[in-house]
């Protein structure tokens, strides 16, 4: 009997203008949104290629002190489906020893026209949510009221058929009406992607897409049940459609914006300027301590006519200096390298606290937005597409872990206390001041004191340069022996199980609402 009613419902639905409207909407909006998403993805890939080339260049280090690798995260093609936060956060992290990576830098869209703004994110899932929720409401708002008003509900109930069978049949019929629309949407989306050729999905990515299709079925059913519930609680279709549209606007537009606004109001995050102030005071403490140590070190008799190139985070390249000078620099590095890391650990609680506040704000906004089933579905889709906060946080955590790995390598191999930390010259070739003067003055002066008395320290007499002492001409050294960063996306099963929580919530809401709708329909006044 249920199948009979379902088939009647389906036949009755597919000849209605709303069914055609649904398909036309899909036909217009899905390719449009997919083409936009593909172009955005391509643009993001272009930015990635540029950033990656820049990073590869930057990662060519001339000594260990200059090796502070830049990591660039490759955009996932699944962002075409659900971009999540991936377009709001940068994908570039530079691994410093003096600071743990807090947030990523760069923004893929920064190369786009910054003056163009968009009202909505036009990814596939957002468009799907809009179309399918609207269609679900348009087909269910009169699921009870329509038949009551036309008198066919009485005609049906005058036969030996239970109300539960009518309800199930009507719901199944509506589901069978809407499911082709959903499959059509996904089919159209995949067709456009396949025709584009530039994008290829891996096996696990296809699994994620498959699971997303299943989740969208759950989402569709839930909105159908919400429509059914509203229809079962009112007597007139006009009232029902008004309530459905209000609920639709609340779910899709008001709750997400309100959640974000409320989270910002309830949880205040300190300004990044305050954070930087705290960080700077720690930084100053480090500088003082490092300076104090340097002062205490025996001053070199002469630095030599050396090349010196210094920078942030212990960046230092020295060539052509005296043995004493190089030894002094080595001792300073040996002390300051680990000290830099120690102070990074001191800075981290401040940064972590700031991150924690951001995270709290994000979580509150997320949970508040879960008042809307469409937001729950979007979050589950973002989790499946690895574009949600957790996925980005996973990337940042991996960069932090990688930094630890790199530091451990430096410590284990005593790189901070090595000459190779800051020079490419062989320590055996280092000369004392007298030897260096003799060499560089081409034998005109035998000692440093002779050079001072005879030529009054005039550098023009130092005509001979130590071979390979120009740091600017050094070639990059091979760093392949060092730990390399390899981004590991969250496992498919982990992502699916994370998403299952959200889908479980959707199912839970669906079951409760269905039960309430069922109770309402059992007592529904058919007159």
């Amino acid at each position, binding site marked *: *009997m249920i199948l*009979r*009613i379902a088939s*009647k419902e389906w*036949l*009755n639905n597919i*000849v*209605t203008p709303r069914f055609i409207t649904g398909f036309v909407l899909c036909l217009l909006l899905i390719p449009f949104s997919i083409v936009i998403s593909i172009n955005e993805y391509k643009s993001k890939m272009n930015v990635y290629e540029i950033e990656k080339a820049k990073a590869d260049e930057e990662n060519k280090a001339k000594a260990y002190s200059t090796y502070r690798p830049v990591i660039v995260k490759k955009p996932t093609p699944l962002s075409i489906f659900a971009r999540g936060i991936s377009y709001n956060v940068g994908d570039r992290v530079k691994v410093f020893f003096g600071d743990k990576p807090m947030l990523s830098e760069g923004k893929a869209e920064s190369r786009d026209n910054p003056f163009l703004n968009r009202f909505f994110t036009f990814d596939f899932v957002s468009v799907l949510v809009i179309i399918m929720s609207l269609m679900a409401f348009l087909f269910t708002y009169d699921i009870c009221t329509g038949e009551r008003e*036309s*008198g*066919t509900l*009485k*005609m*049906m*109930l*005058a*036969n*030996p*058929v*239970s109300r539960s069978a009518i309800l199930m049949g009507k719901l199944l019929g509506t589901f069978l009406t809407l499911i082709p629309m959903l499959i059509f949407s996904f089919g159209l989306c995949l067709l456009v992607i396949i025709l584009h050729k530039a994008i290829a999905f891996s096996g696990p990515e296809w699994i994620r897409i498959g699971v997303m299709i299943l989740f969208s079925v759950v989402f569709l059913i839930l909105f159908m049940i919400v429509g059914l519930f509203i229809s079962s609680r009112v007597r007139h279709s006009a009232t029902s459609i008004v309530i459905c549209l209000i609920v639709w606007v609340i779910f899709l537009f008001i709750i997400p914006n309100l959640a974000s606004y409320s989270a910002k109001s309830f949880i205040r995050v300190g300004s990044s300027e305050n954070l930087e102030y705290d960080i700077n005071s720690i930084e100053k403490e480090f500088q003082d301590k490092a300076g104090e140590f340097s002062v205490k070190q025996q001053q070199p008799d002469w630095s030599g006519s050396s090349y010196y190139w210094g920078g942030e985070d212990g960046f230092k390249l020295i060539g052509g200096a005296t043995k004493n000078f190089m030894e002094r620099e080595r001792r300073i590095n040996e002390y300051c390298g680990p000290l830099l890391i120690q102070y990074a650990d001191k800075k981290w609680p401040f940064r972590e606290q700031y991150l924690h506040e951001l995270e709290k704000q994000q979580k509150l906004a997320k949970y508040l937005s879960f008042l809307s089933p469409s937001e729950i579905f979007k979050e589950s889709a973002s989790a499946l597409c690895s574009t949600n906060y957790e996925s980005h946080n996973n990337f940042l955590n991996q960069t932090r872990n990688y930094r630890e790995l790199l530091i451990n390598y430096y410590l284990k191999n005593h790189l901070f206390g090595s000459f190779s930390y800051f020079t490419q010259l062989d320590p055996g070739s280092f000369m004392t001041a007298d030897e260096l003067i003799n060499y560089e003055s081409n034998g005109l002066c035998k000692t440093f004191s002779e050079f001072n008395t005879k030529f009054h320290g005039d550098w023009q007499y130092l005509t001979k340069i130590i071979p390979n002492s120009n740091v600017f001409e050094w070639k990059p050294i091979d760093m392949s022996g060092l730990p390399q960063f390899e981004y590991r996306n969250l496992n498919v099963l982990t992502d699916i199980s994370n998403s299952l929580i959200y889908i479980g919530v959707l199912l839970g809401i669906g079951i409760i609402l269905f039960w309430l709708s069922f109770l309402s329909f059992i007592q529904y*006044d*058919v*007159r």
Partner: protein
Amino acid sequence: MLQAIDLTKRYEDQQLALDALNLEIKEGEIFFLLGANGAGKTTTINLFLNFIEPTGGKALINGIDVTREPLESKKYVSYVSENVMLYGNFTARQNLDFFAKLGGKPNLTTEDYYMRMREVGLQEEAFEKKLKTFSKGMRQKVGLTIAIIKDAPNILLDEPTAGLDPKAAAELLQILVNLKRQGKSIFMCTHDIFRAKNIADRVGIMKEGRLVMVRTREEFLEDDLEKIYMNYMQEMVIEKS
């Protein structure tokens, strides 16, 4: 056979819609229930069809309590409403087919449908036409065809002639007479006293939820039914004023 035993319905707003109705409609009998709007006629039908629950007494269809065994009791009753709408996007055939199957007749052939349609005066050309193109009279006939297809021993009609032109109404009543001859119990609520006089075996008048008068054909032909009915209506107007 339809039976109402002390059948009572009081709505949530305490309005007494039906007050201890006792009534029995036998096989092959046409019973017309007359009364003003709100007298309780439709409530009686709604109770027989278990659309609403009684607050007292019981309604029996072929001896089956409709409240206790609603699905079983509905096997023995057909229903024609005041304004048959059906599914406008479906053809007459699709509507007949759907309701025939709901009524427990899954194996009817097109010829069976044609035969029933001819019985109510519908042409075969109407078979594949969409219901939304039908006039009210034609829709009522389709509604009646559905009731006939079900072949239930009892037929409930709720003001089926309302809004019909005299010719269509006369045709519909002739169909009822034919059904009576087949042994069906027919219970019809109406305002149409003239047609009641034409074909009813018994007539009841309902007033404010109470069945205030029942006359057999011989009695109401002897008395002036119009006069009796008008008297009741006037009494009601006076009481209300």
